[in-house]
């Protein structure tokens, strides 16, 4: 690690102001950022912790019936309290281990947009709205490829609003070492159609599998997707599996997610 300063503002405005300083960086649960800093791969001069801002924490329901989660809410709280959206609570409970779930936050996970992370699949499948200190961003416009999002420099995720599907399920196939998703598929069925979001698989990060969405909107059963085939071409290929294998897993996990959701 290099030396750095730490500040713990208690309001969003103070956090945004602090982030205006050069080389300042937001700190959520630190589950990604701190290991990176320990390896000297990141060297922020100042960390602005978002963990002491009350308005960024907790789970509630909006008048529109969305599940709203403060940007600094840890996974463990989502797992325990997002009961109105069981598919989401279940997904949060599958992230990492208890220590990770007690520290890591939804805002940090979405901002980081790791191609193997779980939350991006939930946000995209549910068509969530990512609320920042300055605007609201539709999930469909938020993710821009591996570790890339539409967030501006210094912009922070203050809240995430999830429309609640009729039924949903996240099926995660573990990468044996990290236990992130080797492939994870979130299926969410709404009155006006089904959304399917895939994480872990693509070189372009989380994506919607439109073909499966169409098939499932017409017939919400595992059979409807069993014959669909994805190409392995733009899939991640590494020591844990080839692109072809990941493409195959997307199909299997989608079928399983549908089965579990129905």
């Amino acid at each position, binding site marked *: *690690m290099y*030396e750095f300063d730490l500040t713990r503002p208690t309001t969003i405005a103070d956090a945004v102001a602090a982030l205006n300083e050069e080389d300042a960086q937001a700190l959520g649960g630190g589950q990604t950022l701190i290991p990176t800093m320990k*390896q*000297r791969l990141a060297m922020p001069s100042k960390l602005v912790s978002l963990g002491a801002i009350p308005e960024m924490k907790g789970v509630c329901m909006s008048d529109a019936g969305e599940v709203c989660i403060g940007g600094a809410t840890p996974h463990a709280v989502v797992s325990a309290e997002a009961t109105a959206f069981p598919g989401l609570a279940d997904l949060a409970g599958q992230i990492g281990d208890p220590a990770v779930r007690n520290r890591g936050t939804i805002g940090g996970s979405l901002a980081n947009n790791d191609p193997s992370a779980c939350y991006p699949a939930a946000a995209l499948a549910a068509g969530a709205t990512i609320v920042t200190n300055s605007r609201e961003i539709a999930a469909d416009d938020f993710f821009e490829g591996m570790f890339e999002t539409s967030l501006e420099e210094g912009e922070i995720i203050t809240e995430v609003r999830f429309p609640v599907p009729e039924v949903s399920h996240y099926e995660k*196939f573990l990468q*044996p*070492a*990290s236990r992130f998703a*080797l492939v994870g598929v979130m299926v969410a069925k709404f009155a006006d159609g089904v959304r399917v979001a895939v994480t872990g698989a693509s070189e372009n990060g989380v994506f919607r599998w439109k073909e499966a969405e169409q098939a499932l909107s017409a017939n919400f059963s595992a059979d409807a997707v069993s014959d669909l085939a994805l190409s392995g071409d733009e899939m991640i290929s*590494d*020591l*844990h*599996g*080839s692109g072809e*294998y990941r493409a*195959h*897993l997307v199909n*299997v996990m989608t079928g399983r997610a549908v089965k579990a959701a129905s």
Partner: protein
Amino acid sequence: MPKDNADEKGGIGAATTRREDFRFLTGAGQYTDDITLQGQTHAVFARSDVANGVIKSIDTSTAMGMPGVLAIFTGEDFVDVGGNPAGWLINSRDGEPMKEPKRPVLAHGKVRHVGDAYAAVIAETKQQAQDAVEAIEADIEELPAVIDMASAVAGGGLVHDEIETNVCFDWGWIEDNRAATDAAIKAAPHVTTLELVNNRLVPNAMEPRASIADYNAGTDEYTLYTTSQNPHLTRLLISAFVLGIPENKLRVVAPDVGGGFGSKIYHYGEEALVLAAAKKLKRPVKWTASRSEAFLTDAHGRDHVTKIELACEKDGTFIAFRTETMANVGAYLSNFSTATPTFLHGTLMAGNYTVPNVYVNVKAVFTNTAPVDAYRGAGRPEATYSIERVIDMCARELGIDPIELRRKNFVKPDQYPFASAAGLEYDSGNYDAQMDKLEALIDRDGFAARRAESEKNGKLRGLGVNAYIEACGIAPSNLVGILGSRVGLYDAATVRVNATGNLSVMVGAHSHGQGHETAFPQVVADMLGVDPASIDIVHGDTAKIPFGMGTYGSRSLAVCGSAVVRATEKIIAKAKKIAAHMLEAAEGDIELSDGQFSVAGTDKSVSFGEVALKAYIPHQFPIEDIEPGLEETAFYDPANFTYPSGAYACEVEVDPETGKVTVERFAAADDFGNIINPMIVTGQVHGGLGQGIGQALIEQTAYDESGQLLSASYMDYAMPRADDLPFYQVDHSDGTPCTHNPLGVKGCGEAGAIGSPPTVVNAVVDAIQSGGMDVTHVDMPLTPARVWNAMQG
């Protein structure tokens, strides 16, 4: 040997809980990094980020001027000191000695693997040292890396230019048997051939390596605190080969050590560096590896590529085993890297079987990767894996039940001592009895029903079995000397009875998870009839213990424990003399029972404590016949290896859609001879099984073509977690005692890691074949992706 009331008295056979666990579990352990010395400074290493390169220049001037920097060392500073030697000389088939390129303290001229240290900064704080390392300007010209063993043998680049080859040796065992084995295979009615990889493993001890050196300018004495499995061996290597510090000026202390699994047997350059730096600065110098450094620089394990042939009659009677192996030794020879793929591997190539012909060929190959050396099991897992996989394949080819095929060829109980075709003499065993036990433990009869149940759930279920033998308790010095060992392999113990009757037992073995502090007192307590709680074990400090060879190769109890027995026998002999004097009786009439010395046939007795007191307050003492004091030392050098053996079985489920394997049941029937503490033994088996199942299913060490370690963190290197493992059925009762050591013990530390990998792979192949797929082999680790690929044909 276990006595009925053993548990009550805490003697031999008692399942006493481990007394050392209290301090480990309450955070009171004292590990090397917990030690902080007055005036301590910190060392950080500059490590190569290329696998092969010429060091053109190293400019340390900027770094030297940075805050807190006290000294910077490069390879140049160590050109005149010795190299870290290989402990075992292997001769090639043509009689030529192996190639031994120098292993320097810091790389000089060339860097040879990613992580190879070429400079070290000593600074007031670790942070300052890290900053200065980043300011070192090293001009290293990258060369193409030599990674793949086949191409390393075929030519191409050289890891060590001066030896003009990448082949360290080309060894044949037993060369005189070669022609007969070749002829037998040629004439055999059936030959099964299998090519396999024994995957490279990263040891991953929980505690990374660490060292602190302290130099006393007043006395010219050095103290090195270090994470070692064998402090005396480390001292010997540093004194006799690397730095030339006189042995009597160097104290090596291995305090609590958080696991070693082999990787902490060896002396590493970092130890020499901190010693040299401490002398130069006249201040203590500390270094603690990061987890990344551990991945890149701890000696790795396994990494064999093998072709094995099994020739047999149509009825399955074995005729010959022949293997050709390439064993990766990495960029430098680690201390036992030449013994591991040869004498710890080739000599076990007859397995548990009466096969008459065995020939083993091993080429050790230098590559631009981390050094490879002994890792839990060391050579024996590689032997067992090759043999037991090819037997399984042979059984399938011949349509013989795999258990029956093994039984047909087992050495039988009346054949001991048995001279194996690979040159060892097995002293005892009963492989059929273990197999009987195993079939019951795994509930073989219930397998068909469980398979049907799995199939109902869309899963494939397989049953795999395995029999293993290992040579442990290394070893007879005379024998290993003939075989090329440059060290002796005895061990030593001093039993000191204190005046107030309690005991300190100084042992050469080192405990870093094995439970010696509990088990060794059980032996002494049993012999003396005293409370085990009155006995403490002292280990890990060359200033306190007799010269012992440390802990590896499942040797501590068999070798060092035997030294403890011999020393305790001497204590008893002397105590009896003192008691005879106190009781005014003849020495021959004195009996020791339950801690009381009594005169046979009378009610006259004195307690052990009274005798101890007399020894140290020798008033009215026959000083002309008996020396005061009660302290004895014994060195023990065994007559043979010990031969633990066992039969393992497991059941796996394979998900045909994803290739994911889950181990559903695992049974281990082991013969460790007599058992001192069954609970500790069970724990050792569990640990070994975890490592073996990890190797079989998930542990994957991958270098890319340029020599970058792809699996250099826990993000990509999978360690087994509790939920990767099943509940084990473990039974090590009724073993056949070792015939040549006083305790009749064989050693249990490595068995689990030796016996489990082939068991798991055999089960997976069985499962896949049950699904109608023609898959005969899948290389470890059997990750979901690999199993799925194999099933795609």
